[in-house]
């Protein structure tokens, strides 16, 4: 199948290095300590953060840092074909783990010993790049909850199809079976905290693809920063100072 047309455009009309339309919002869940929704094209996720709070299961308590937990769930209607999905299948367990580890790397857990932070991500619509979208939403939600972090971690994926590195794959491109590089980046520190790839790719091309994903992460980081700034200004205005 031709994923990049001769004209240089992709199936959904984007250029190879173009991201989908991104929309991010803080405060999607009223009752949570922090929450956010993040949309990348048709992919739509909500994240909610509860904590830091007392550890529920005393056996899991860690003496010198906070316990971070994460649960990833998909709505029944999130994919094209409707399926009732069991809780805690392999894919969602793996994703929960990836998200937890990525977020743990940027949260200053040592500031909140003997406490617990719960991150819940809920996929409303899946159209490729859910992993990245979840991380981005979680970052926003953590920031909204006022959890101390060393930097904003953002994530973006890039692939390689028809000998072209492509930024931000959608479901169609994702299921083509080509390589898919997901990067999580601490943009200010310029450090990669998450790197996943599941295919074979020559090293020089891989570097290009990864670089592309990193560029994507930086762009998202800028956007997220903007959203947070606006939100803060709004809050400041509401407080009347």
């Amino acid at each position, binding site marked *: 199948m031709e994923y990049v047309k001769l004209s240089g455009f992709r199936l959904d009309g984007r250029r190879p290095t173009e991201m989908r339309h991104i929309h991010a919002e803080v405060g999607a*869940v*009223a*009752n949570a300590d922090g929450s956010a929704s993040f949309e990348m094209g048709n992919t739509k996720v909500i994240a*909610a953060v*509860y904590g830091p709070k007392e550890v529920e299961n005393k056996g899991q308590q860690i003496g010198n840092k906070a316990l971070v937990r994460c*649960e990833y769930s998909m709505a029944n*209607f*999130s994919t094209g074909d409707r399926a009732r999905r069991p*809780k805690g299948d392999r894919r969602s367990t793996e994703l929960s783990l990836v998200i937890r580890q990525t977020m743990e790397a940027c949260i200053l857990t040592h500031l909140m010993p003997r406490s617990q932070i719960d991150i819940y*991500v809920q996929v409303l619509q899946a159209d490729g790049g859910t992993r990245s979208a979840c991380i981005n939403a979680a970052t926003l939600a953590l920031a909204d909850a006022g959890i101390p972090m060393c930097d904003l971690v953002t994530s973006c994926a890039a692939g390689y199809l028809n000998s072209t590195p492509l930024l931000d794959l959608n479901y169609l491109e994702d299921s083509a079976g080509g390589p898919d590089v997901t990067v999580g980046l601490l943009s200010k520190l310029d450090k990669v905290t998450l790197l996943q790839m599941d295919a074979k790719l020559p090293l020089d091309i891989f570097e290009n693809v990864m670089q592309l994903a990193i560029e994507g992460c930086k762009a998202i980081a800028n956007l997220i920063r903007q959203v947070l700034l606006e939100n803060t200004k709004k809050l400041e205005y509401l407080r009347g100072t």
Partner: protein
Amino acid sequence: MVGLSAGEKNFIRGGIEQDLRADGRQRQDFRPILIETGVIPQANGSARVRFGATDVIASVKAELGKPNPLQPGRGKVAIYVDCSPTAAPAFERGGGEELSTELSAALQKCLLGGKSGAGAGIDLSSLMVLEGKVCWDLYIDGLVVSSDGNLLDALAAAIKAALTNTGIPKVDVGVGASPDEQPEVNISDEEFLQFDTSAVPVIITLTKVGREYIVDATSDEESQMSSAVSVSVNSHGKVCGLIKRGGAGLDASVILDMVSAARHVSQKLIPLLDSEIDAAEAASLAGQGSDVDP
């Protein structure tokens, strides 16, 4: 669940007694209702409904299926509700399962009518494509994104809105197939049938706190309830379902009283919901239009 101090409890109870609730509402007032339709483009119809801090999404997916041999002239509808852990940490790891089944069962009772199908909010015979062979199976999925009380009413409103938003593709049945074979069907990409949702009832939950009952309780108020009755009322003022949701026993006359109160409230709520849904539909259509423009 939020822990409340004795003072807070008193404040809530006292407010309800004096017809001035903690958020300034009167006993029979709903919180501001926000409706958005078409939020899930992949579904045939969807809506997001917010009652204050309660936030739910409903989606409708239609799939072609085979009718139940006992009821060959009707389609099938299944309602499932899922409680996302984003709404409350207690829902994680299947912790919301119990509440989910309870809500699903309550919605099924209130929207789908009796076993024979009489009094159903959704006209099942309109889902029939070819008698005994092909029908539409509607899967209605609810998702609780944020919970601050009164989930059932919000879900019912979201389902009503999602059904209004639903377009079911027109189907052409291939003729000439022999009677035992499954006929060929042709699903149209362009023509959609709109649903008539005027018969879909609304659910009004009356929560009894002290001697009074209130509508649209927040979770703080729900924690003070002694019992609650959910009544499903359609636009003709007929009761389409009733569930007493736990708690202490009530005198029969009190329940009948609550039913008539619910009917009274429904006379305000139904037009309000209808106009909100229409506005949301108009907005989503306009939104689609503006996407195409530039």
